[in-house]
């Protein structure tokens, strides 16, 4: 039980918030509201899965928001050019994977610090896109584009299925695949991992490439929600995903964390904003309170880590 203390604590907080909402407000637990909330957070959830891998290796990727924006536009442009929506999604995913691979190659083989590499790509990609699109949205999309031509309800269910599948794949993958072990080993002690014959460069490259792929895929999934695609989507996505991973209990220096924790982190940070609105707290507080939650979560990490160190030194 102790092993899942963090996940339980986040889950308890979520239940507390939900209970508070149930007791004091009306309208939160409607199907419409919940499905809107869910759909808005699907990209955060999917990208957070990749971000978990990156943070497990002790790295970080702050370019996901910009990659997301590019891939959204790519989806729209491809669809407008007459390609089937699924092909458009595939192209967006490949573009995401390529951008992620670029970051990953610089981090893994050039040994450049990931914060600098992805900061540079964040700015370069976002401003490159702004220059290319001149801020124009992509419209004139074919009729079959929006929600793949599905009804709102079926589209929502489809998203639920995809999100659930990905969560399962990543949970199982981290636990039961060699690659998963290699990620933990690399993040926990890269020197030791190398001596064990693990190609840590390849591990680092892979987690960035996978995150790029997920970012492109989620951008395409999100793009089809509307009949127009903004050129500035994904702003702040890096913060939301990194925060979710941190709240979920992963140590930012690498080596420990779980997919379950990340999913709960996404849920908690996703409901806290709307919850405040429903509770009548000014929306201006939303970010401040999110910040406090992140700070609290990281403090707990540091303290429990510190205690463990004390024990092992005794």
């Amino acid at each position: 039980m102790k092993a899942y203390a963090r996940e339980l604590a986040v889950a308890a907080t979520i239940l507390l918030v939900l209970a508070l909402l149930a007791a004091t407000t009306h309208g939160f637990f409607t199907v419409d509201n919940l499905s809107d909330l869910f759909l808005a957070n699907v990209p955060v959830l999917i990208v957070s899965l990749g971000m978990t891998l990156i943070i497990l290796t002790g790295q970080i990727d702050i370019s996901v928001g910009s990659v997301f924006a590019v891939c959204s536009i790519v989806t729209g442009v491809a669809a407008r050019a007459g390609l089937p929506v699924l092909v458009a999604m595939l192209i967006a995913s490949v573009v995401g994977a390529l951008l992620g691979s670029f970051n990953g190659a610089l981090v893994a083989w050039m040994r450049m610090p990931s914060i600098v590499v992805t900061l540079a790509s964040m700015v370069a990609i976002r401003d490159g896109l702004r220059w290319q699109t001149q801020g124009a949205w992509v419209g004139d999309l074919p009729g079959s584009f929006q929600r793949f031509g599905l009804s709102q309800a079926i589209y929502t269910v489809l998203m639920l299925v995809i999100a659930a599948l990905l969560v399962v794949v990543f949970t199982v993958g981290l636990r039961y695949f060699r690659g998963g072990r290699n990620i933990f080993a690399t993040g926990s002690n890269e020197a030791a991992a190398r001596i064990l014959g693990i190609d840590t460069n390849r591990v680092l490259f892979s987690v960035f490439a996978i995150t790029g792929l997920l970012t492109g895929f989620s951008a395409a999934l999100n793009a089809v929600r509307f009949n127009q695609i903004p050129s500035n989507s994904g702003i702040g996505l890096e913060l939301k995903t990194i925060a979710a991973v941190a709240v979920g209990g992963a140590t930012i220096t690498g080596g420990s964390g779980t997919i379950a924790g990340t999913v709960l982190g996404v849920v908690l940070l996703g409901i806290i904003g709307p919850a405040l609105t429903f509770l009548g707290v000014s929306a201006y507080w939303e970010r401040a309170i999110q910040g406090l939650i992140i700070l609290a979560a990281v403090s707990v990490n540091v303290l429990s880590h510190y205690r463990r160190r004390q024990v092992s030194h005794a």
Partner: protein
Amino acid sequence: MQNVSSNSAPPLAIAAKSLTKSYAGVRALRSGSLELLPGEVHALIGENGAGKSTLTKIITGAIHPDSGELEIFGQRITENDPNRSRSLGVAAIYQQPTIFPHLTVAENICMPLEREKSGITVDWRSRKQRAKELIQSIGANIDPDRLAGTLSMAEQQVVEIAKAIGAKARILLMDEPTALLSERETEKLFALVRRLRAEGVAIIYISHRLEEILTLADRITVLRDGETIACCNACDVDRAKLIELMVGRSIESVFPKRSVVPGEVAIEVRGLNNPEVGLHDISFSVRKGEIFGLVGLVGSGRTELARTLFGITPVHTPIILYGREVTIGSPAEAIANGLGYLPEDRRQHGVILDMSIASNITLASLNEVAKRGLLDSAREQSVAEGYRTSLRIKAPATDTVAGALSGGNQQKVALARWLAIKPGIMILDEPTQGVDVGSKSEIHELIVEFAERGMAVILISSELPEVLGMSDRIGVFHNGTIVATLSWEEATQQKVMSLAFGHEVEA
């Protein structure tokens, strides 16, 4: 020189009595004593792990002793810390100078001296002037405007000394200051040390180079097994006497006996060179079932050889494994060729502290516990459980996090991991370092077991009795090469130490 007045004796610079210090149950210092006079060069010698660095760390306040007394200039020190000892005039200069490479010489010298000054502005002119004066006062000549990173190792030492003099150091602690210096640079450093001595500075001089010590030091304190066993005048002793004092102990632990039937040659190395890590002309071979000990001073090339063989610092020259030439370019290739390597620094390169015991054990052999690419938890647990029992790893369960275990048990986990890849050749680098006595003899038994099962074992250790007691043959390292290979019958502590210190041994 000493002004012997009405006071009976001049105050000692340092009087340390029966200092003790243990780390996690391991006694690093049993009874460390030292009497340092102002205006003398006092050498501190002993084998690796004899307690020299523990004793000096207590003096500089980096660590606290468990018991014992320490006086600095007649002042009883109970609560020491680095700031306190610095204010009493203690300064330390380490083998690797601790300079800021991107700052100028003047900044490097003056920054620590300005810490006490009030104000937030920097007076560049006076800073430069001060640095220049300090450098000149020790008879050196370095431009204060140069970037410290561009200085040679010897010049960096000079900067360190200037820094210490600027801080009005009256006790100077020098740890292997000549290790990285050329002969001419060493001469200059000695002149500087003698000059400081004439000015009344007390100098603690740690070195492995006995000739140096005999020419430079006034008195010599010898540490052995964490105990001060002698303090003698340099003019009363010679090299042989010093070596005898350093090693002359009975082998305390009884090493497991076994009947060796060495098999075919498992690994053979002929004329291996790796100039990048300072190795040259290394030749040796190890048979199946044989334990080959490697001894030598720290930095003589033992660990570098292990890392080269294992492909961490690879070379392109092939080695011969079971009569077949192979080139090992990475740890993965080494593992594929049946090599295992237990690295020296457990925390840095060994166990992964965040992972469970079971995951740690199977990490190098995941194929063994995987079915079609998927890890089989049940199989993993049972493999780990098997090693937990056979290696007597003391832990509540195999899913306990490795970081929660004692040093000895962490080391067993690291060993189990390498056993799990079923290596034919196992390189063990300091397998019992920092391990409690009980685990130590258990690890010794395990090593013997490996050999009995036909493994070729290369055992690197700084503990002479361990190597002598365990090995069938012993290779002695000096300055990046194996200078001699001895059978266990020929190998005595004196002989091995003399060779390790670079002396010829009469037949």
